[in-house]
């Protein structure tokens, strides 16, 4: 019980002290997870929309695969990414293993299905009306896409928030492809896992509190100021 209380005390001490190592770890986590969420959005949104509004053969199977990949185990993604990026692997020449870039790649692979799945679902259910509206206004293909993105922006934001949450809180992928190297690839989650393994529970709990606080702040900013009133329940 006392190490839980110690954890809170340690968290307070860590925050007050502005320990440069902790700050670097937090900023690296944000950098990796933000980057991968942004890349995943750039890939996932157009593809999700296009897949949603097109009726093609095998759409039921594709949607099942897509929804399955949404909950793909991060550690398995890390493992497969490592096999490709390792020196002995097909992309070994790039020297990406144990770098933040490898972590971003792994997390992008992880988050893209999440974003794509949410957008796909939304564009399947709501896309038809929007496309029709676009047609009546004389929109060409590109403008229809922009219209869809604009109309679905609430869902896009939800997808972004979900994807970011998945990225910042996963530990398996970044541990395997990053290697938890001090000052280079150590992020909040791997730091927590390492300290837990070392029996330094207070430090692990402290970083856990910081992680949840950061997550809360980030989501609050996105939610309140960008999604805006979409959450208001109309009566």
């Amino acid at each position, binding site marked *: 019980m006392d190490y839980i209380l110690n954890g809170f005390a340690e968290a307070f001490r860590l925050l007050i002290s502005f320990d440069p190592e902790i700050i670097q770890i937090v*900023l690296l986590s944000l950098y990796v997870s*933000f980057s991968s969420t942004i890349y995943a959005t750039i890939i996932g949104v157009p593809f999700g929309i296009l897949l949603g509004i097109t009726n093609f053969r095998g759409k039921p199977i594709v949607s099942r695969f897509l929804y399955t990949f949404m909950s793909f185990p991060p550690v398995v993604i890390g493992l497969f990414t490592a096999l490709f990026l390792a020196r002995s692997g097909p992309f070994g020449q790039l020297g990406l293993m144990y770098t*933040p870039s490898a972590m971003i790649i792994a997390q992008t692979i992880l988050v893209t299905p999440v974003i794509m799945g949410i957008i796909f679902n939304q564009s399947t259910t709501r896309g038809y009306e929007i496309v029709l509206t676009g047609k009546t206004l004389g929109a060409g293909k590109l403008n229809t896409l922009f219209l869809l993105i604009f109309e679905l922006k609430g869902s896009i934001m939800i997808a972004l928030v979900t994807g970011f949450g998945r990225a910042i809180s996963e530990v398996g992928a970044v541990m395997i492809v990053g290697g938890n190297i*001090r000052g280079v690839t150590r992020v909040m989650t791997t730091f927590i896992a390492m300290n837990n*393994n070392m029996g*330094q529970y207070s430090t692990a709990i402290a970083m856990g509190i910081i992680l949840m606080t950061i997550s809360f702040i980030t989501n609050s900013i*996105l939610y309140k100021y960008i999604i805006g009133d979409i959450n208001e329940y109309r009566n």
Partner: protein
Amino acid sequence: MKKRLTLLSIVVFVCALALSFAGCTPAAPEKKALEPGSNGTIILATTTSTQDSGLLDYILPAFESETGIKANVVAVGTGQAIAMGTTGDADVLLVHARAQEDAFMAAGSGTERFDVMYNDFVVLGPVADPAQVKVNAPKDATAAFTAIAAVPSTFVSRDDKSGTNTKELDIWKAANITPAGDWYIKTGSGMGATLTVTNEKLGYTLADRATYANMKATMSNLEIVCEGDPMLLNPYGVITVNPAINAKINASGAKAFADWIVSPATQELIASYKINGDQVFTPSATQK
């Protein structure tokens, strides 16, 4: 719209700040002769117990400032460290599993191997000591293990091909016992996690002295029940990986590291590393 723009720009600003900080590493307080990374980087594969002991955080800044080579330490189990050497994913290894090291060298995967240092293992057990190890076998590891298996008392094994696990299996072999049953728990994890399990289950385990010394404060149910047996010595070796394995291996950086770690100055530095006032590692490099 204006409110959203302002706050979107705040989000972008935070991202930009994060991006700019991501390149920074924590500033080292001492004056540096050479900038780490100016001479390249090496991937040093070592074991979790070595990292957890804190020794590398203590000695590596000296290496980085003397040579300008950045040492990226990836701490995994011995089995994985050796595997990383075999596939060429690491440039230099620092491990403590002599049998596996010899096999590695015999297979031609390593260029050079040197003794570096040793620490020792201790047998840890619950304060109540149901197997009576403290009384009957305080300096004899084989007898201690025999006593534990005779009860049988809970024994927690790392079961992860680590150096510690290899030593543990050697002791079981010397005692002519094949441990199996509900009393023999396999965690498949690092030393710290295994100690935590042992502490919770009030069992016995084999641990390296450094990790135990670091974790003693949280291990209130355990104490050393057997130590000092010559069989419990834990020698470390540094191996430079054979650059023929793949093109990305930094052979010169690896050699610089190996030469540095066996140099008299570094050997003294290793001896000066103390946990709670106790020296943990004994240097053992023979002069060339």
